[in-house]
């Protein structure tokens, strides 16, 4: 089975655990709008997030990383598998039953301009979480809003202003303030810096790292920029076509990437140092469609590691190859496949 990639390593129970998570969307068509196929956005993912850690989730567009994030906050109801939060399965809870968990699991979105209601002042945007969760004391709410602004580095005067009066970086600070308002335990950050200018991106990354330390937050950090993910994450998971293909401690993944896809991704990052040209692995073709994806190893046909034609449809096996380092083993995904066969 391609599951249970969590080795017990004495860190206590995980904060969140995804077990064989699936999120399929029906693809409808024809006159009768019948379901013609399944778009398998997340196709059997097992992961866990420990207290206080940042798990980086990397992959290219359409690999399902954002869908996975939305399942974890339960903005989506997964079609299969489990989402365990502190041991409780929240994957099929109703809206009402979910409410206590909403405090604990929050999300930061890519484009703060779209996630903030333009007609609300910053004060009312930041006050909303407290109101929704039953804080009826206006003075107390105001105090908390001011504290939040201070934490994320915005002036108190922001309270009267509206989202359009802020720059992209400042708006992202507001998005972060809203996410941390109720002292969550887990924050899912979906491409939080990719819409920002380079000089502002580092401010936001620093803020996220400081908040983590101060409030002992756990992050799932979803991004396509490997350098950013490497900087902020304790562990990294690489996702391809709805599945995790490699998982491990950040340093280990970047020092010793094993999966052919991970190695291609790392080699594709342009390095801001002229004249230093590394061996670049160019992948053939494009990411295949997640609609009815190949049954076997999804990456085999794009891989630069050759394998026998009859092995192409063989499923890969997700296995721990060294402590904490998991990789999908298949003749086309790792070099020297035979050496992994005991």
């Amino acid at each position, binding site marked *: 089975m391609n599951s249970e990639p969590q080795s017990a390593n004495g860190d206590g129970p995980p904060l969140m655990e995804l077990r064989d998570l699936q999120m399929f969307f029906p693809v409808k068509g024809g006159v009768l709008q019948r379901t013609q196929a399944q778009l398998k956005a997340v196709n059997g993912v097992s992961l866990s997030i420990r207290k206080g850690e940042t798990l980086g989730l990397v992959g290219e567009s359409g690999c399902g990383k954002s869908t996975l994030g939305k399942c974890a906050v339960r903005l989506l109801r997964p079609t299969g598998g489990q989402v365990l939060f502190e041991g409780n399965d929240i994957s099929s809870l109703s809206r009402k039953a979910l409410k206590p968990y909403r405090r604990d699991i929050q999300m930061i979105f890519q484009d703060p301009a779209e996630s903030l209601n333009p007609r609300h002042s910053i004060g009312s945007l930041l006050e909303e979480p407290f109101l929704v969760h039953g804080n009826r004391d206006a003075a107390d709410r105001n105090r908390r809003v001011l504290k939040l602004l201070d934490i994320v580095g915005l002036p108190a005067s922001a309270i009267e202003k509206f989202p359009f009066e802020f*720059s992209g*970086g400042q708006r992202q600070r507001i998005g972060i303030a809203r996410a941390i308002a109720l002292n969550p335990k887990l924050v899912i950050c979906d491409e939080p810096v990719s819409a920002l200018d*380079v000089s502002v991106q580092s401010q936001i990354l*620093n803020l996220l790292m400081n908040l983590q330390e101060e409030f002992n937050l756990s992050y799932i950090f979803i991004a396509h920029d490997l*350098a*950013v993910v490497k900087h*902020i994450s304790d562990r990294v998971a690489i996702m391809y076509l709805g599945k995790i293909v490699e998982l491990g401690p950040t340093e280990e993944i970047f020092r010793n990437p094993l999966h052919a896809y991970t190695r291609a991704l790392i080699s594709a990052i*342009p*390095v801001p140092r002229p004249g230093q040209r590394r061996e670049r692995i160019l992948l053939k073709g494009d*990411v295949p469609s997640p609609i009815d994806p190949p049954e076997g190893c999804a990456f085999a046909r794009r891989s630069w590691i050759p394998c026998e034609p009859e092995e192409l449809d063989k499923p890969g096996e997700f296995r721990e190859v060294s402590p904490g380092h998991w990789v999908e083993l298949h003749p086309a995904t790792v070099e020297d496949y035979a050496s992994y066969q005991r």
Partner: protein
Amino acid sequence: MNSPLLDVRNLQTAFDTEKGRVVAVDDISFTVARGKTLGIVGESGCGKSVTALSITRLLPQPMGNILGGEISFEGQDLAQATESQLRAVRGARIGMIFQEPMTALNPVHRIGRQLSECFLLHQDISKAEAWDRSIELLQKVGIPSAEVRIGEYPHQLSGGMRQRVVIAMALACKPSLVIADEPTTALDVTIQAQILELMKSLQEEMGMSIILITHDLGVIAETCDDVVVMYAGRVAEKGSVQDIFERPAHLYTKGLLDSIPRIDHPPKTPLQTIPGFVPGLHELPTGARFAPRSPHPDAKAYMNSEAYRSVRPSLVEIGPGHWVEDCPVVRVDQMPAHT
């Protein structure tokens, strides 16, 4: 004498908006050498795309206008050229690649029709011949089974494939200059690597010059020979790619380089930042525009001085071909040494 292919001098471009005139590109000069790649780097609103649109005179009308300067390209001043002269240049002598290929392609026409149009507009050849050449071109930009793809519509292609088609269109008439405005920003890293590789090999083969506009310093370092760093509508610094990356002379350039997380940095350490944010184009000072964000100890004093309000710093050459804004509070070599 090896004269540059493109020589932009004192270009000034403005937009007339409801709030008044906004100078998006404020008196900038640079050259593009033959067969070389010039990178223009900067953050949103710095004027890099407006520069590209000015060169091809594709500014939105009637708001966008070139107020002054010369754009001399192959002996012709494009700033003064008539619309019919420009039509002979665009697509033929200057090819263009934009960020989002879907907006550059017409969704209701097949790839083949759009590609052969480039030939039919600028060359005296038959439709059948144009069609054949289009297939050839698609093969050249690495599109598999080009004979089939040529009959497809843009939406049937993936993002990377579409960008290849746009590149094919830009190169159809063997231009001497290609302007690529964030050509890989909308693409995934592995596809970006493919496209950059493709542009490089086509350049080696066809010998055209490229202006590459991007915010990604990694892309600049890997593909460009010369670099212009823009900030708030002006050139902060320009020089060879080695000058910019190894000897940055402007504090903004240095700040940018220091603030990107690098793959070889130790993780979970604080990143360097540039305080503040990119200024809006309204109410920009005459003096050095980076001063409010400068870490230089004298920056505050400078901002209270008359010079900040009324003296525009010129560029000074500090090494062969390496120019930087001549204002002490934004220059790396004028920073007091740490004790």
